[in-house]
């Protein structure tokens, strides 16, 4: 399986990662090679086998709806690259797309 440069750019767009041309070429080679290694899985018969998403049987965990201490707003906001008062500040959402 060989990916085209356009496939890599489309994936990068989905993953929200900017790549330069060298990175695109490099990833095209690396990902294509990995996909080749995955072919051995196709040879394993999994007809009717359920998928395992998690290895321990975990159910929903509920707790009492009790008031408990949590992080102060300043503790959270002070870690943001850009803020304005009590808000996280981001670049325009609509103009860019």
């Amino acid at each position, binding site marked *: 399986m060989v990916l085209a440069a356009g496939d890599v750019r489309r994936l990068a767009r989905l993953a929200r*990662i900017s790549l330069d041309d060298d990175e695109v070429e490099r990833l095209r080679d690396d990902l294509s090679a990995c996909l080749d290694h995955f072919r051995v899985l196709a040879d*394993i018969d999994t007809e009717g086998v359920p998928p395992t998403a998690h290895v321990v049987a975990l159910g929903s965990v509920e707790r009492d709806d009790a008031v408990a201490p949590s992080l102060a707003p300043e503790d959270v906001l002070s870690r*943001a690259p*850009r803020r304005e008062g009590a808000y996280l500040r981001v670049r325009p959402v609509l103009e860019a797309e």
Partner: protein
Amino acid sequence: MSPGAVDLDRTAHEHADALRSGEYTAVELAAATVDRLRRQDEALHAYIAIEEERALADAALADEALREGEGGPLTGVPVALKDLIATAGLQTTAASRILEGYVPAEDATVAARLRRAGAVVVGKANLDEFAMGSSTEHSAYGPTLNPWDLDRVPGGSSGGSAATVAARGVPLALGTDTRGTIRQPAALTGIVRLKPPYGRVSRYGVVAFASSLEQVGPFGRDAEDVANLLAAIAGLDPRDSTTAPEPVPDYLPELGRGLDGLSVAVPDAFFEGAEEGVVEAVEAALDVLEANGARLVRGVDLSLAPAALPAYYLIAPAEASANLARYDGVKYGAGDTGGPGLWDEMERTRGAGFGPEVKRRIMLGTYALSAGYYDAYYLKAQRVRTLIREEFDRALAGHDLIVSPTTPGPAFRLGERVDDPWAMYLSDLYTIPANIVGYPAVSMPCGFVEGLPVGLQMLGRPFAEGTLLRATAAYQAVTDWHGRSPPVPDEAGRAP
């Protein structure tokens, strides 16, 4: 030894005894440890940050507890934390530029539990960026070197934690294990590390990579130290709903039970592709187990185990691509690249903040989860995961342990595999199945090949890590591989 002089080559339980008897104080131990770590780190680069202030503060508290007779097995004992574990007030980077300067507001549960146990945090150990790697060469802060041979890697991703314990910098460290990243570096550096069963240890506050696979686990030099460290961090955590309600057993009584009556499965699949010297060392270890009461059964069928490697490299990147979506340059970490719009800004932040291996995994995971490929790749890998698990359950139904080499070869040279991802991934061939099935596994030193340590891996039944510690203690009682120390590059700094 003169009063106040500290022997840094001791194990954690030896330090605990010395501290309780007043041979030296926790502050003296912490100061001597930081001093040695600074000297060693010029050669090893095992740390992203050595935290002297925190170490001395923790140690002062420990001395107070000791004076009041409240010391436990970890009180005053120096511990390194892989820098994937959040520490309130101490920078936590995951070895990524995207988290440079990030100082968490609170401790991970494991860090909080260690604090309660009186342990002394001396530093944040180096790792592959976001734990993605098998050599610690993918750290944005530069590689960690193997104390046994400075031209070689210490393994990864917990390479810093492994190197510093192997070099006698600290007696204990915490790492994380997603596909063998506790056991593989332990094998390559000649120490003991245990991957607890999935669900045993809280991951609250541990930077997430592959949530259905990873566990936090202890590194030390002998079974007793590893047991004490695991006991301190294990158990249900209301803040991590994937922790299991199974009660944590008392590990220490297990350590004296010996090997009598244990049935050991030796699967051929775990020896295929191993180097000759590695096989010889492991065979010699199997002889020791048998001579001391274990029953060996060869030819146990685990023929699907090699498929765990490709299955892992679909499942883990898929989970990573989702987990790492949170690094968007908005809430914390790096950001503010000055992009014209939100999406450009996000792409630029992530493009500049993630290293090549992390980008590779995110892209692979994005591919495996994308429309048109989901069934053929991700779902297929999860179905194969079920089959592998059933095969392991069959093998473990009749046996207590599955024993094998930890890695196919000893530590490889720096740069040797960094340009060939799949060659790098192959070093995890024998360790990945334990993560795929979620069962506990341990690695311990069992010999040397060309002066480099070889690791013996034991994999156990679900939540039977006590049996692994028992077998480790029994093996260590009759061998001395764990007592060998590397030629640490700080001879001048050795304690008297």
